[in-house]
């Protein structure tokens, strides 16, 4: 079943076209990763799907046009995890995750909301941190709390913008495994913008390779991550090997003049 269907999507900042006539399909319970060099439009696409930005074209979420939905309705069905969150003003981890219930509540927090937050914290193994200040957490812990906040929205799709940036190797794996198990256990889909091709290859069902705001190629990691595609899109000569039945990319050198954006 198709979760998100993006058709003829175009977005410009003033006269500068960032996304040009994009078509992308996100299936049920899949991890779709947007890859491509800086400035290729990955983050912009994530923000367009969540209607943080308002593009031209159509985005159907479970058959319903996102452009015609109220922001609150979108927030009940799409959970957004930003690349980095500015530290909220003196809030605990529990409060930060409770904020994810905002699309479902008017003002009063019900027992069911508190249970939902407690369950989400437990699911992500964050219960020990519940009463700690969000600002005092490590980068990896913060990232997991932001994922928990998005999960508390009870979304059909998680949108993640560079979820592993600024994290060390262990926390990168930790966060990606968390996302992967959530998709499997809860049956939700995840769309993420990601730079690390090896992580994308290992954890994604589908990759969409963007170059200068258009879809250069889309498909399974095994099919998509070829030396030719990497060279064309990134302007980098790379060695593509196989490890754990997944492509493993070793960048060798930058190809002068071929770098894309």
């Amino acid at each position: 079943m198709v979760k998100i269907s993006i058709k003829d999507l175009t977005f410009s900042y003033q006269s500068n076209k960032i996304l040009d006539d994009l078509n992308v399909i996100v299936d049920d319970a899949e991890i779709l990763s947007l890859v491509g060099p800086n400035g290729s439009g990955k983050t912009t696409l994530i923000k367009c799907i969540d209607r943080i930005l308002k593009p031209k074209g159509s985005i159907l979420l479970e058959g319903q046009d996102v452009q015609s939905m109220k922001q609150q309705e979108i927030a009940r069905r799409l959970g957004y995890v930003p690349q980095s969150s500015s530290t909220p003003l003196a809030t605990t981890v529990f409060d930060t995750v409770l904020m994810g219930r905002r699309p479902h509540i008017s003002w009063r927090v019900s027992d069911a909301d508190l249970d939902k937050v407690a369950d989400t914290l437990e699911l992500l193994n964050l219960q020990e941190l519940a009463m700690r200040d969000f600002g005092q957490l490590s980068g990896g812990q913060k990232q997991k709390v932001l994922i928990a906040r998005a999960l508390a929205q009870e979304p059909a799709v998680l949108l993640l913008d560079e979820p592993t940036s600024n994290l060390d190797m262990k926390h990168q794996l930790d966060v990606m495994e968390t996302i992967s198990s959530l998709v499997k256990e809860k049956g939700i889909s995840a769309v993420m913008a990601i730079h690390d091709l090896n992580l994308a290859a290992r954890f994604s069902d589908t990759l969409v390779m963007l170059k200068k705001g258009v879809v250069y190629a889309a498909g399974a990691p095994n099919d998509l991550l070829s030396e030719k595609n990497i060279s064309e899109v990134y302007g980098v000569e790379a060695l593509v090997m196989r490890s754990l039945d997944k492509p493993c990319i070793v960048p060798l050198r930058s190809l002068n003049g071929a770098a894309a954006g």
Partner: protein
Amino acid sequence: MSAAHSHDNPAADLREQYEKFISKKIFCLFAFILAIILLAGYAATRGSADIRVADVYATILARFFPGYFQTNWFSDTIVWGLRLHRILLAIVGGIGLAIAGAVMQGILKNPLASPFTLGISSAAGFGAALAIVMGAGFVGGQWLIVGNAFIFTVLASFAVYGLAKYKGITPETMILAGIAIMYLFSAMTSFLQYVGHAEQVQEVVFWMMGSLGRSSWDKVWIVTVVIVVCFPYLLLKSWDINALGAGDETAKSLGVNVERTRVVCMMLVSFITAAVICFTGTIGFIGLVSPHITRMIIGGDHRFLLPISGLAGGLLLLAADTVARTLLAPVILPVGIMTAFLGVPFFVYLFMHRKKEFW
């Protein structure tokens, strides 16, 4: 719930922890209310005529429950006629300024924001100066200065909105527009002081220092009504203000109409501030520091921060006014000076001993 039981159910345990955490905030709210009641009782005893604390409360309650509490003409005149309206103006004025400060810091995501960030104090100062020096204004008679201060304050916030709207309503555009408006009105006030007579300039300076000496029951009621009308909306928006603290994009993704929330909150805050400072003069420190003090005690959740900051502001302004009128009695110092003298040491103490990252 028993420890063994809660240990078996981590989610219930977490919920219990959170409910305790919330109970502490509610306790803090009631503690501030009690502190205000006690300080108000004490403040009403201070002055040239001697009156005991018990008589103050009895005199107040006698108006509401005449069969249960006894008072006399002397106490009634002192409390109801002379002191209580000043005390209540300090409380509601402090509440208004502190709520306004907490909202401004929240929607602008800026620890230095206060109701005056938008140029409000200099606009009010200019309005008052125009009335004092030129005798010109929108309303006449005894309301000339008050009316001018109020109207110019509201005009300043519309000007900030207009300027910021041009480039998009973000914290940066609002602060920059506010600074521009502030300097404009300050320059115009300086010009009026330059051309005014010495007595007029003195009156302008005194007005801008802030004072509760011009209090009356009418003024208490006006400020109270404005706060009662505006505050429920701000409290209702406390979730959205919390979300704005995590950034505009996150707030949008949580379903918040970012621009509308910011504009409506700004307008209501300006209205509250205008209603207070047109009667009291520019008392700047309360709106800046009360939210910080409260945030250090109870954290940054605006559902609790807004009401408790308000109470902290009311308490601080009442304390400052009480000290201002008794320290060098019979000389009454401008309360605007005293708020900083009292608030800064307390603020610095909390700041030096803080355990949490509060901003």
